[in-house]
């Protein structure tokens, strides 16, 4: 697909290099026309057929080029003398046609390596008649671009037969001094076909090179580390670059584009498409385990959502020490480097417009809210009420909080004689027939929708290049009233101020307006299946939050501030505004001083500001307000008549909090790139940077009695309560209200030195090294401890460049690399000495300010370090039919911060100490293939596979209670095991009518009390919840103008807990048996926990400490997901030219269409039953370029 896309693209933009060169490159003496054509190994025998009348010669050349696939390279001096020609030839050799086109000109046309070079005959073309003095050497300079006019970096320019060489900079520019007029320049690069060009006395060159077919799959062949770009052939580290075509597909969050593309990057998306990543396993036990995200050279505070997905030029993923250690202390989890698009120098105005809309289906309520049916629920409630219940008398006001279901209420009312048995049965039967799924779907759910518009303008004039993009996005979540709007503006500008000075500035501003007024999944899951939302007459029901008959019988609601004490989610979402507004501004500017060829100094800075404002307004129609005000009212029942004292004003309630992050970076860096004596390439950077991140948060106290129209607020009529001025609530209990603001202010500072050097000999052997020291404002008595040296070394060997490989023609490329080094992680919450945390507000009872010890001291304090080695092979075989890479790595984390057991006499039983160790080792394979059936049909596939093994090798925890182990997370870290393992009880069947689990030494325990002893001795380690094996499989077919692609991802070898029955007792709220009820009813009690076998089971409520943590619920989590299917239609050139467009694509894309699981439970392991699972979504879009 890449191949075809590129071809087409090239074909309608081919003439731009010419016009540009003619217009701009006045000094150019040579013009090279490059065409994108199939490999033309031998051009000599090529012929052309022409029938033209009075056309410019240029047009003829274009046609020759089209027919032969040869580059045509013509001296401007020759071209300027051409006239219009008329030709009629058939199968005439190329050279002859050319001479026909240039009548009367003394030209020499020769075919060199697939290129026809046409120039005026010079002295060199005549035989030497006599001895001539060699001409004086000259200085030359030039620019190298590809077919699209994009500058090519890291193209080596060698003077043939000499040791003089250089390579091109980021703008594709090169210069060489003291070159002989008669020298021949050789241009070589990883991604381009080698090309030779005689200097012929010229001093300025514009060279357009042809992209190698083999490199088309990796259009971006330079890796961006955020500090520099490194060409693939000179890198020793493990990098991945996301292909451009992958980046071009529609996405709301750019991080989605990474999924499935890169071996060793495990991603998980939430239901709204926001990802979390894990690169090469878990590297830190307690510190942040997310990779560092770098945009245009600086780490950002906002996440991926602060990057316009349409603006991305490239994404590099840095995985090993050599790649990432330049990021030092924050790199252990890997680094994701995003580079945004810039306008190319010398390109006229280009407009890109993109619009798409994505729509998904509503939630399947049986999946996200897996409750038993109404009839089953009522039947279960009957048994649960009779046998396993808490026993409350509905006569007591104190029991108002028992929000029994309608069935539970009926059972309880009948039991106490408030209703007859017949009435009870009638109510129960009626409930059995109700089903609220349709109402929930209609009134509370929505189809998730997403519409994005983006327009970008880019172009340059003279020495200045500009790019502007505007984006607008409209999102609707799965829940009614929960939606968001996102606006983004990005501007970038590059100026070549002087020959020796570049200046660039860019800015981004994002506003994200989110409305979260809708219900949450919990609200839906908390309703009985027969809790209807709307009555038949259209009025709203009461989804009672109390034992309703108590309110009706005992509470004089009319005397309370709000008579209505009912709750209904529809009313709630319509009468509240829960909003969150985020704005992110980012400004970056840099100066680059080009001091000497190959040597430059850069000074760059970035300022970022992230503001978040959360606001929750509930008006007085909400239950939230009515209930709060009513409950705060003191109902004095000891006097007659009763008195009702308002302790909160009536009216709306407003909660607000704000946070602001201010982040600046300033970096000064020296870059040096030189080739000495042709064989010695040196690439060095070094510099220093500072980074300051300040986070301020501010929470306001709730404003009671707030009126959104008049902006008036109420006061506490009797004060906020407390020991010295107590106030009581409706039940006579004491109450207090928060009435103060609270503030937090955090500062994160770093100061770093860094350096990176690479040396390549004969373009075959590369040695690299990096060093970085990061000092942070962690708290220490000894400033030396702040500095953490991280370093790496690496070596690379271009095996395919060796002489002995020249005969092995099935190997196109073979590159071996090995690296070793350290990455780090920082925890700034501890110090050698104890630290405290202070309260921002006085204690409400004592009116004192208080403080707690936040850290008991960490005498082992240092930086977490991960030693990291990586060995890799890059290969390309069988004329690029098969290409890819293999990486093997071993990461060994030491001095990791962990919560370790220490004797309690130290004030705490556990303390964060730098005293744990963990390893990650693994292998990653990437395999790509191209198959071209014919000119119009081709296939490209890419398969990546990764294996990771994680093990905690050092950690001291004295004792693991069973409950700590089964709860997982940091408490379940066990030495010798994978950090992501889960532990479960072994179910032992039923003994004495009680389900049992195995304890130590085979003793069984029932579910009535916690099991004693160390859980490691008797619980079962069920395996890891993070897949050790991951697979990504991308396929792309190009069939004429259609492009069809799909991505599968697979994760294997891990486990997850499927949903089991929830064994609900009648307790203080609704009894909600889930849809696994029948599994238990029909199950074998020796294999699955049955419903209680005793009529009276007093500790049934305690069973939840066991039934959720049994071995049989843990099942295989392996699955294969159809991540994405995309069909794109590109309008053919003929139509495009009529529309004066350069490109137009129409596409339809499907995401999350289906998943194949290895478990029988029918659950998606990443989104198990009862959680929000992404439903199939379809995207329809249009992209065009002018």
């Amino acid at each position, binding site marked *: 697909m890449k191949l075809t896309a590129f071809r087409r693209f090239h074909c309608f933009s081919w003439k731009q290099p010419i016009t540009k060169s003619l217009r701009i490159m006045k000094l150019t003496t040579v013009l090279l026309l490059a065409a994108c054509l199939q490999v033309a190994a031998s051009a000599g025998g090529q012929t052309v057929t022409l029938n033209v009348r009075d056309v410019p010669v240029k047009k003829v050349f274009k046609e020759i080029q089209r027919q032969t696939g040869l580059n045509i390279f013509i001296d401007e001096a020759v071209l300027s003398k051409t006239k219009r020609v008329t030709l009629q030839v058939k199968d005439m050799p190329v050279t002859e046609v050319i001479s026909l086109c240039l009548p009367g000109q003394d030209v020499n046309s020769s075919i060199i390596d697939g290129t026809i070079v046409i120039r005026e005959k010079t002295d060199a073309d005549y035989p030497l008649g006599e001895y001539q003095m060699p001409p004086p050497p000259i200085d030359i300079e030039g620019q190298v671009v590809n077919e699209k006019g994009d500058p090519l970096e890291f193209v080596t320019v060698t003077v043939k037969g000499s040791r003089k060489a250089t390579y091109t900079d980021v703008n594709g520019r090169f210069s060489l001094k003291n070159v002989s007029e008669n020298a021949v320049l050789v241009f070589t690069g990883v991604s381009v076909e080698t090309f030779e060009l005689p200097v012929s006395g010229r001093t300025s060159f514009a060279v357009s090179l042809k992209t190698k077919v083999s490199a088309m799959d990796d259009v971006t062949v330079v890796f961006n580390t955020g500090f520099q770009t490194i060409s693939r052939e000179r890198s020793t580290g493990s990098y991945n670059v996301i292909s451009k075509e992958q980046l071009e597909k529609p996405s709301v969050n750019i991080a989605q584009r990474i999924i499935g593309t890169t071996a060793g990057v495990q991603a998980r998306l939430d239901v709204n498409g926001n990802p979390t990543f894990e690169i090469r396993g878990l590297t830190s036990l307690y510190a942040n385990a997310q990779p560092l995200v770098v945009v245009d050279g600086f780490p950002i505070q906002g996440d991926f959502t602060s990057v316009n997905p349409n603006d991305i030029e490239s994404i590099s993923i840095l995985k090993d020490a050599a790649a990432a250690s330049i990021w030092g202390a924050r790199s252990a989890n890997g680094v994701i480097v995003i580079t945004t698009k810039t306008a190319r120098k010398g390109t006229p105005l280009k407009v890109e417009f993109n619009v798409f809309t994505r729509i998904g289906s509503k939630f399947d309520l049986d999946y996200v809210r897996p409750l038993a049916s109404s009839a089953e629920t009522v039947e279960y409630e009957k048994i649960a009420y009779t046998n396993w219940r808490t026993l409350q008398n509905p006569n007591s006001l104190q029991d108002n909080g028992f929000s029994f279901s309608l069935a539970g209420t009926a059972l309880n009312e009948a039991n106490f004689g408030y209703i007859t048995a017949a009435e009870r049965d009638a109510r129960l039967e009626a409930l059995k027939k109700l089903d609220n799924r349709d109402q929930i779907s209609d009134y509370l759910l929505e189809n998730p929708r997403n519409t994005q518009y983006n327009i970008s303008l880019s172009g340059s004039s003279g020495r200045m290049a500009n790019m502007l993009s505007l984006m607008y996005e409209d999102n609707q979540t799965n829940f009614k009233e929960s939606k968001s709007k996102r606006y983004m503006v990005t501007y970038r500008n590059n100026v070549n101020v002087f020959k020796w000075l570049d200046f660039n500035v860019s800015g981004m501003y994002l506003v994200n307006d989110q409305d979260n007024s809708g219900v949450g999944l919990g609200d839906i899951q908390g309703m009985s299946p027969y809790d209807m939302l709307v009555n038949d007459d259209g009025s709203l029901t009461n989804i009672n939050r109390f034992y309703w008959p108590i309110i009706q019988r005992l509470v004089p609601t009319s005397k309370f501030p709000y008579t209505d004490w009912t709750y209904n989610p529809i009313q709630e979402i319509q009468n509240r505004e829960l909003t969150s507004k985020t704005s992110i501004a980012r400004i970056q500017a840099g100066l680059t001083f080009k001091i000497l060829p190959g040597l430059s100094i850069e000074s760059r800075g970035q300022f970022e500001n992230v503001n978040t404002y959360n606001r929750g307004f509930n008006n007085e129609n909400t239950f939230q307000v009515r209930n709060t005000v009513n409950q705060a009212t003191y109902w004095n029942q000891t006097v007659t008549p009763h008195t009702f004292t308002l302790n909160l004003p009536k009216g709306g309630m407003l909660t607000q909090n704000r946070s602001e992050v201010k982040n600046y970076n300033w970096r000064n860096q020296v870059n040096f790139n030189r080739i000495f004596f042709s064989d010695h390439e040196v690439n060095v950077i070094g510099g220093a940077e500072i980074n300051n991140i300040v986070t301020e948060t501010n929470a306001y106290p709730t404003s009671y009695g707030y009126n959104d129209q008049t902006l008036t607020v109420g006061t506490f009529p009797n004060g906020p309560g407390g020991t*010295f001025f107590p106030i009581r609530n409706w*039940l006579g209990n004491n109450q207090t209200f928060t009435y103060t603001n609270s503030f937090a202010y955090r500062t994160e500072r770093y100061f770093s030195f860094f350096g990176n050097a690479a040396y390549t000999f004969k373009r075959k052997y590369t040695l690299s090294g990096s060093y970085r020291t990061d000092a942070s404002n962690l708290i220490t008595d000894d400033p030396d401890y702040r500095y953490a040296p991280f370093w790496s070394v690496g070596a690379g060997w271009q095996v395919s460049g060796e002489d002995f490989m020249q005969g092995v023609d099935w190997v196109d490329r073979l590159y071996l690399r090995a690296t070793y080094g350290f990455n780090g992680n920082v925890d700034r919450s501890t110090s050698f*000495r*104890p*630290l405290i945390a202070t309260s921002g507000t006085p204690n409400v009872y004592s009116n004192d*300010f208080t403080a707690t010890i936040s850290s008991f001291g960490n005498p082992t304090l240092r930086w977490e370090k991960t030693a990291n080695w990586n060995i890799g092979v890059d290969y390309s075989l069988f004329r690029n039919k098969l290409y890819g890479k293999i990486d093997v790595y071993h990461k060994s984390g030491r001095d990791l911060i962990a919560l370790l057991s220490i004797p309690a006499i130290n004030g705490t039983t556990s303390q964060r100490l730098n005293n744990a160790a963990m390893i990650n080792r693994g292998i990653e394979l990437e395999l790509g293939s191209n198959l071209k059936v014919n000119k119009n049909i081709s296939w490209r596939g890419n398969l990546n596979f990764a294996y990771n093994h994680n093990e905690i090798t050092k950690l001291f925890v004295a004792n693991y209670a069973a409950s700590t182990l089964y709860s997982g997370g940091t408490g379940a870290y066990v030495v010798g095991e994978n950090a992501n393992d889960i532990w479960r009880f072994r179910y032992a069947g039923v003994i004495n009518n009680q389900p049992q689990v195995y*304890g130590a030494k085979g003793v069984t325990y029932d579910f009535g009390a916690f099991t*004693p*002893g160390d859980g490691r001795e008797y619980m079962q380690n069920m395996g890891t919840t993070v897949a050790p094996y991951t697979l990504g499989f991308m396929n792309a077919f190009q069939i004429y103008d259609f492009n069809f692609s799909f991505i599968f991802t697979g994760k294997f070898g891990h486990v997850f807990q499927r949903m089991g029955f929830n064994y609900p007792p009648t307790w203080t709220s609704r009894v909600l048996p889930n849809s696994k009820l029948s599994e238990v009813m029909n199950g074998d009690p020796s294999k699955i926990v049955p419903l209680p076998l005793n009529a009276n089971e007093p500790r049934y409520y305690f069973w939840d400490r066991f039934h959720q943590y049994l071995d049989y619920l843990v099942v295989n989590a392996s699955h294969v997901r159809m991540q994405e299917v995309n069909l794109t239609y590109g309008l053919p050139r003929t139509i495009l030219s009529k529309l004066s467009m350069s490109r137009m694509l129409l596409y339809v894309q499907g995401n999350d269409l289906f998943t194949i699981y290895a478990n029988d439970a029918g659950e998606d392991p990443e989104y198990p039953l009862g959680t929000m699972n992404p439903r199939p979504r379809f995207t329809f879009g249009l992209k065009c370029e002018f």
Partner: protein
Amino acid sequence: MKQIKYNQIYKFILVTTMFFAVVSCSKVNNFLDEPPSKTTSLVITTADQLDALLNNYSIFYSEGNRTAIYGSDDYELTKALYDARPGTFSSMATIQFMLWDIPFLPDDNREVFWSGEYRKIFYANTVLDYVDDVTGTDEQKAALKADAHFVRAYSYWVLANTYTLPYTEATKGEVGLPIKLSTSFQESFARQPLSKVYEQIEADLAEALKTTVPLVQSGKARHWRANKAAVNGFAARYWLSRHDYAKAVDFANKALAEYSVLVDYNTEMRYGNPQTLTLNSGTPQQSSFTLQYPYTHNNQIDFTDMLGWKEFLYFRLLNHESWWYIPSQELLNLYDQTNDLRFRYHIVEGYSYDRGMTKPSYNYPGYIFFFKDRVPSGPTTAEMYLIKAEGLAHTNQVTGAMDALNTLRAKRMTPGAWVNLTATDKDDAIKKVGEERRREMPFSQRWFDLRRYNNNQYANDDVNLSKSFYPYTNSAVQSTQPVQNYTLPKNSRRWATPLPRTELISSNGEIVQNTY
């Protein structure tokens, strides 16, 4: 020409860079000295911060001393009560502490008392480590020092009286406690001899007694911080435990001179929110029962009533995680059930129903003070009257002893002839004071009292404990087996509770277990 220009630029940049490099090197440490947060992860620099640490009563007030709760004869879980609903007593710690278990208790994984007291000691040590280096007035620092020494003395005393043998001439050299006097993790973990522990307590107490902070400030009794009344009150308790009755009386008087408010149960005590439960539901015997609690039961989280209890000299509460102080029949029999208002309000009838014993119903009371789980354990004015009475009785001042006792009784009983007790002689006075002490401070002080009764010069008050219950394992009560008799004789080594095993593991064996 061109070359010169480049050189100029180069020099300019070089100089500028070097200038910035030099400037930045000297500034880097300043740049990095900025604290990571203004409210969390703070280095201690001011006396106000240390004050804030000690103000945090939530760290200090709670004592989860299960040895005290279950170990004495105030607590009794009978076979009959257990059989009525075993599920209520599913925590094995209940059985093990009640029966003075040795083999299984070290593995109990809900230990909070040992670690909790050492956490308080850490806070105190933090204050003492920093107090000389922080900014603050000398007066404030003196108060902080006295406060920290007081916290430490108090914690070492309760730890010693729980995990070590009673302190006598004979046990001086027995293994005591690890003594931590700083915040360093490098200090020795080893348990020091008992004599050293008591020397430390006395040294800390001597420092604490230097406090000049009054209990009542601006009309508020600030009993969550060390104060003159608290320190003297604890000194009275300490010397009573050391059988120095003269000193005990002296300190009790000093405490009372500072603060002597008693809560008059006749006028200030009242019932709180009632609770109605259904008994034997679904059976022909179905009925309703309404429990009456003292008002102090109302709030679990809200501290208004707890901090508002007027008798505290120092705010400490015994905390019972299983929510049922089961009064023994012996304790119940001590009360005048008609006229003693402590019985009326604190002995809650039918509390067993609240604990789930409703079907079939089984009626047994519970001792309730604050919510279901907490009873006062810090020194109170009531305790001062009792210490004074006991000290006077032992020094043969019978009338004085009875006067002190009756001052308290007047606030606890309905008015009548039964209020004022008289004693015939020293032994009678000691007996009557002991009984009143049990009525006034069940569970919280009884364990400590038994330890001193059994080790003083006075033999009449000795108590050999015995309980009968089913045999048990580390995980279950063997209720099918016949009931056994368990005893704790006065000279048993089990008066020292076993240490949690995690301590032995975490210290690599440096902390040793008690020997039995």
